[in-house]
């Protein structure tokens, strides 16, 4: 096993990976941008090297600087986390060529799965069901329309090089087809520098269900259950759960076998996720494979009792998985709420300095956070500040624990989507486990109102805090020079003391 591993990431995922490194007695080291010199992931590491200014394109994404940092810090391997360089095949190759171990799948697998059409062709050849459509970009609008007519409306237009919802268009009828096609192509060209768009059958009452796969270099390829990711807003996941309330054991076994076939088709090694689109009729179709650790992997860990990062490390070190499919049995239920620094109404990012922070604790709670009470959430990076997970012996207990955990969570200074999570949990369709990807487009229940006496209690508390601060200052100095009140001055002094 490695003695020192460089985590080429920031935020919660860097922290989460370092925790497993510590569990295994491996020294975690990392890299940071100028803005992140005192970020939580740097504090947690044994050593860190600055790789450039705040903009990730000039720091976290500069592969040669990351590799140079790994060499200088004496790391034997690089874990890329998710995002940033994690799905960059050229970087994976460069890591290996530098004599370091890449904790991820072979570069060829990243390349195959990184191109949607290539991926579709590869898995189709392995017998994996794909959404009815044509696995190549339409040559011209007339051909695209012919394909759409043949499949039958509604159809989905997708960018060949795409991801994250960019270049995607749902088209309900022939009349709106041409305008949607040119919009999708413009968007794809802008986002990916490639305007290739293909046409797929649109699946009705769609669910987004993904299978976790884990393969070693000795031929073992297992699936570690599924995750239901249908609570989405504009193709961004908000809440995930494991197991899916929509998937029964038979369906799980069939989807798992198909996911393993997809992984084998591209020579996969390590942890990966095969995403499926599942119709209301329970037919499922391959969407794409994410060739890295997934954001929502903790719900799988909670239900299957595995540490996926540890398995990644063992596989990268050449060890066999040492597990059989029969070892991987689900137990209980887990839910993840992604905590974003964003306005719950406009969904715009809400960066800023955190001015009070407490994470929930207690039975069945797991928090993966990339911030602490002294953190500033920068505008430059992903607005996700933490993942809050709860586990219960059944789904209902996991949901009740999530409600309690959200209530215990205190985050001041930035606006978060905690209120949105409460509203989703209270939604009858979510509570019943009968929802699809359209859930967040339906009207949500109102957020629960504050208890009576809320306002007076806050007024009393603020006034008492101010009074106590004034008493502590005893005699006014008269030369304070700014309009800060005592309570605020005390807060600033506390910050300077680092307390």
């Amino acid at each position, binding site marked *: 096993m490695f003695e020192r591993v460089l985590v080429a990431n920031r935020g919660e995922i860097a922290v989460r990976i370092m925790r497993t490194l510590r569990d295994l007695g491996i020294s975690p080291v990392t890299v940071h941008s100028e803005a992140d010199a005192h970020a939580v992931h740097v504090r947690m590491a044994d050593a860190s090297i600055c790789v450039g200014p705040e903009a990730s394109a000039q720091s976290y994404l500069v592969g040669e600087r990351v590799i140079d940092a790994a060499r200088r810090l004496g790391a034997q391997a690089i874990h890329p986390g998710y995002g940033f360089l994690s799905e960059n095949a050229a970087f994976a190759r460069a890591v290996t060529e530098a004599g370091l171990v890449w904790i991820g799948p072979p570069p060829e697998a990243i390349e195959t799965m990184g191109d949607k059409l290539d991926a579709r062709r590869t898995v189709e050849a392995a017998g994996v069901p794909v959404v009815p459509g044509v696995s190549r970009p339409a040559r011209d609008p007339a051909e695209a329309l012919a394909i759409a007519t043949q499949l039958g409306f509604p159809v989905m237009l997708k960018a060949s090089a795409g991801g994250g919802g960019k270049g995607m268009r749902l088209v309900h009828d022939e009349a709106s087809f041409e305008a949607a096609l040119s919009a999708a192509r413009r968007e794809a060209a802008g986002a990916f520098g490639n305007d290739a768009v293909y046409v797929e059958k649109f699946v009705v009452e769609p669910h987004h269900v993904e299978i976790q796969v884990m393969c070693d270099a000795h031929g073992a390829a297992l699936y570690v259950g599924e995750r239901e990711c249908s609570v989405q807003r504009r193709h961004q996941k908000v809440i995930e759960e494991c197991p899916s309330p929509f998937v029964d054991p038979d369906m799980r076994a069939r989807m798992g076998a198909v996911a393993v076939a997809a992984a084998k088709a591209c020579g996969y090694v390590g942890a990966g996720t095969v995403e499926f689109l599942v119709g209301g009729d329970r037919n499922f179709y391959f969407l794409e494979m994410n060739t890295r650790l997934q954001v929502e992997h903790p719900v799988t860990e909670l239900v299957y009792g595995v540490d996926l990062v540890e398995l990644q490390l063992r596989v990268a070190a050449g060890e066999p998985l040492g597990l059989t499919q029969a070892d991987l049995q689900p137990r209980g239920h887990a839910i993840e709420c992604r905590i974003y620094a964003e306005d719950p109404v406009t969904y715009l990012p809400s960066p800023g300095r955190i*001015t009070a922070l407490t994470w929930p604790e207690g039975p069945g709670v797991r928090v993966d956070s990339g911030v602490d009470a002294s953190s500033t959430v920068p505008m430059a990076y992903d607005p996700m500040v933490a993942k809050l997970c709860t586990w219960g012996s059944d789904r209902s207990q996991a949901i009740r624990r999530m409600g309690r955990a959200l209530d215990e969570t205190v985050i*001041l200074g930035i606006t978060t989507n905690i209120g949105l999570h*409460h509203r989703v949990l209270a939604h009858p369709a979510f509570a019943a486990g009968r929802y699809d990807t359209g859930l967040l487009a339906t009207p949500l229940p109102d957020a629960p109102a504050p208890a009576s006496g809320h306002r007076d209690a806050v007024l009393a*508390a603020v006034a*008492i805090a101010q009074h106590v601060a004034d008493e502590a200052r005893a005699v006014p100095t008269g030369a304070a*020079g700014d*309009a800060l009140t005592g309570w605020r001055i005390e807060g600033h002094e506390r910050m300077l003391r680092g307390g």
Partner: protein
Amino acid sequence: MRYTIEHDGESTPVEVRRLGTDRYLVKIGDGEARVIDAHADAQGVHLLDGAHSRRVRLADDGRSAWLGGHTVTAQALDPHAARLRARRGDTVSGGGDTVILSPMPGRIVQVQVAVGDAVVPGQGVVIIEAMKMENELRAEIAGTIASIHCQADDRVEGGAQLIVIDPAEG
């Protein structure tokens, strides 16, 4: 002490008097004064109001508060800001203030009172010059001059505390 607390955009006068360790008399707006057991620490205040236990978390910049899963903007307005708002008619009730603050950066021309002097509302206490204009700052309450923190020719910043008045009883 009397504070102006802004809660979710609305200003409310709150009076606080310490009765003992962790015990306060609190009067909110026109409500009854109540004895509240409360303990303030670095992260907020725990209130034991009768049998009601409430933990209020306060932001370290003094601008927002959290209670029972609900976050609100809430802050103690500094006396100068509170007075400005009172002039604009924002506050629920008028009333004066015990601290005279410099409304702007400037130079003290003259201090018109001495410690121990009795003052009445409207009485001039300090003349400050800024941008070639002299402004007379007046007491807004009746009381006695408790302390003076400036003298003629001092340069002061906006918001600096100049005079503290000990309010007259009643």
